[in-house]
């Protein structure tokens, strides 16, 4: 995405200005359309799903702001929640003012969060961005711990253990909307998320945004083209703080409470996992990561108490086998989508996925039983796994788990050459096709 890929001009050129505009912004227009209809699609039109979609929107803004540092500028922050949380606190205090009668529409709460994030980003960034690399990461960790500790000391502002609460409905109604129903909140938050994503993308296309990539790639050379890398890092940090704060403001608006967990290392780690799993090297990556992780958090935690363990395993697998994240995996297929070879590749994937699922089920049986025995022995050894009643005190479930895991993995291993061969053929076809296209 760091490239100035020219808009592919169709053979019928001389397109009117509107068509070119449509062509240029087609992804954004499509995204806006999807976001508008999404909460009305059957299966997604429940209050629970609206709440889930809202959380995904908040996480996406937060993860994108994190990626302005990691993906764009090459700064790995271990304390990005500081700016999310401080933005959130400013926003919730602002909401209390609105509750107290300040005649400002409640939908502008995220702006207060953004300002809070920007100010704290400027404040802390002027110190942390003096260094890059590992030292920057460690300082960001220190700042994170500092602010977390302060949140328990300065209870007037942070509200201590309970946090600060406010109401989004106790305000002037806007166009007859009171923002009680989750659907209304969804639209407010998705509006801000969309605007934020567009602005962050635009930022990457400005002179200083381009220089962020230059600083990421080679800070020394940046100096020899006239830029102070420290200053570039500072600008990136301030902008990332602004959007993290805006995400914090969305959080305040959605949950009507901001507590110490919003500045915690857990939240800082969470956004890091989202960015890596989604793929920080691509603009879309953190959005994919935020959606995936939020969904896993909500749905997996319903099924199993060991969901963090699965998340950790997933994170490790992605880091080792797909360093480009999910976005990298998806975009890897772009050249072959246009060829017929895609179906062969998909069949090969299916052949590999079946034994992989068997192995995962085997592993899950073993993990679930171990988890029950070690963390909740008082619940007994009888449990229900994949719809079947099992007793962890008997050997059979254990044997089944081991056999499924071993056999599944063995067959999975056998399918690798099949996938590789299908992939190779597809790539060849794609290359041949692009050569033929270039020759025309």
């Amino acid at each position, binding site marked *: 995405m760091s490239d100035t890929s020219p808009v592919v001009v169709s053979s019928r050129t001389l397109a009117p200005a509107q068509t070119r505009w449509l062509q240029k912004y087609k992804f954004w227009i499509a995204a806006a359309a999807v976001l508008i209809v999404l909460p009305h699609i059957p299966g997604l039109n429940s209050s629970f799903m609206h709440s889930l979609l809202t959380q995904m929107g908040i996480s996406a803004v937060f993860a994108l702001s994190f990626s302005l540092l990691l993906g764009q500028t090459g700064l790995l922050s271990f304390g990005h929640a500081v700016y999310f949380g401080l933005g959130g606190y400013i926003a919730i205090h602002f909401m209390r003012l609105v509750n107290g009668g300040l005649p400002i529409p409640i939908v502008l709460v995220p702006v207060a969060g953004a300002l809070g994030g920007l100010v704290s980003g400027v404040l802390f960034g002027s110190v942390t961005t003096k260094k890059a690399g590992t030292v920057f990461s460690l300082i960001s960790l220190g700042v994170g711990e500092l602010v977390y500790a302060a949140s328990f000391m300065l209870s007037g502002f942070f509200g201590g253990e309970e946090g600060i609460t406010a109401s989004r409905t106790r305000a002037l109604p806007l166009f007859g909307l009171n923002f009680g129903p989750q659907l209304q909140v969804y639209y407010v938050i998705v509006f801000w998320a969309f605007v934020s994503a567009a602005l962050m993308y635009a930022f990457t296309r400005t002179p200083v945004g381009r220089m962020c990539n*230059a600083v990421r790639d080679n800070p020394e050379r940046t100096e020899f083209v006239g830029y102070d890398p420290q200053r570039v890092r500072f600008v990136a940090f301030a902008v990332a703080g602004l959007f993290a704060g805006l995400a914090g403001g969305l959080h305040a608006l959605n949950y009507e409470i901001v507590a110490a967990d919003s500045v915690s290392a857990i939240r800082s780690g969470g956004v890091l996992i989202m960015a890596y799993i989604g793929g920080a090297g691509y603009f879309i990556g953190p959005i994919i990561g935020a959606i995936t992780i939020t969904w896993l958090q909500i749905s997996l935690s319903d099924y199993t108490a060991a969901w963090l363990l699965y998340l950790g395993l997933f994170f490790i697998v992605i880091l080792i086998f797909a360093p480009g994240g999910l976005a990298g995996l998806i975009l890897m297929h772009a050249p072959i989508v246009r060829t017929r070879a895609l179906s062969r590749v998909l069949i090969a994937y299916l052949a590999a996925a079946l034994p992989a699922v068997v192995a995962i089920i085997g592993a899950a049986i073993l993990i679930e039983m171990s988890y029950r025995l070690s963390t909740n022995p008082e619940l007994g050894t009888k449990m229900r796994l994949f719809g079947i009643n099992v007793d962890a005190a008997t050997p059979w479930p254990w044997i089944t788990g081991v056999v499924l895991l071993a056999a599944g993995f063995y067959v999975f291993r056998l399918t690798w050459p099949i996938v590789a061969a299908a992939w190779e053929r597809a790539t060849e076809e794609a290359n041949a096709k692009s050569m033929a296209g270039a020759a025309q």
Partner: protein
Amino acid sequence: MKSDSRQCALQLQDVHKSFGKTPIIRGVTLDIYKDERHAIIGPNGAGKSTLFNLVTGRFPLTSGTILLNGRCTTDVPTYEINRRGLSRSFQVTNIFPRMSVYENIRCSVLWSLGYRYTFWRSVDKLRDANELTEKTLEEIKMTARRHTPAGVLTYAEQRALEIGITIASGAEVILLDEPTAGMSRHEANNAVELIRSMSKGRTLVMVEHDMGVVFNLADRISVLVYGEIIATDVPNRIRENKAVQSAYLGTH
């Protein structure tokens, strides 16, 4: 001498540099005239690259003064020296590997065109920046490779891009650190032509090991041996200089 009256682009006055207790540059005094092509030669470890690093502000001087267009550069940060019109290439290729060739060049022209830390305009709409980028791409003959990530270019292409980044901003004083190192004869010849054409109207200082390139390009040559300049003169007289022959050329 006639040359005394010429304007100097770069002046080094009794420059010393030590790393710990080890002296590397031991009193270098050198005038680089405006618009000349000046080569610095010398055996390995003579301190040629260190001299470049001192001039560009990468390392602080131990003592002495460096003047760029008559202005002192002591304690001036590298990016500020660059803004005053001095640019350099590196011995080890030093580009932006994950960005495209086009982006590499465009990033190199932004500051000189006054865009600084602009965050309210799209780079794609900066006409002068994009035109200058196109022009530089043509100069280094890399227009066809514009979309290629710099990290996957061939070695010779990366060296050409390195020179492109160095000259794109229109700097008046250009330092090239071994621009043809590791190139085949054919590639080196192309590089020499590129350097010759782009150094017109500019001051060029280069460190180079290839004597063919040096005697082909340079107006004047300085010989640096163990941190001291033992001779500065036009190529023919350097070739005949007894001290130079025994210290350096004789070993080849």
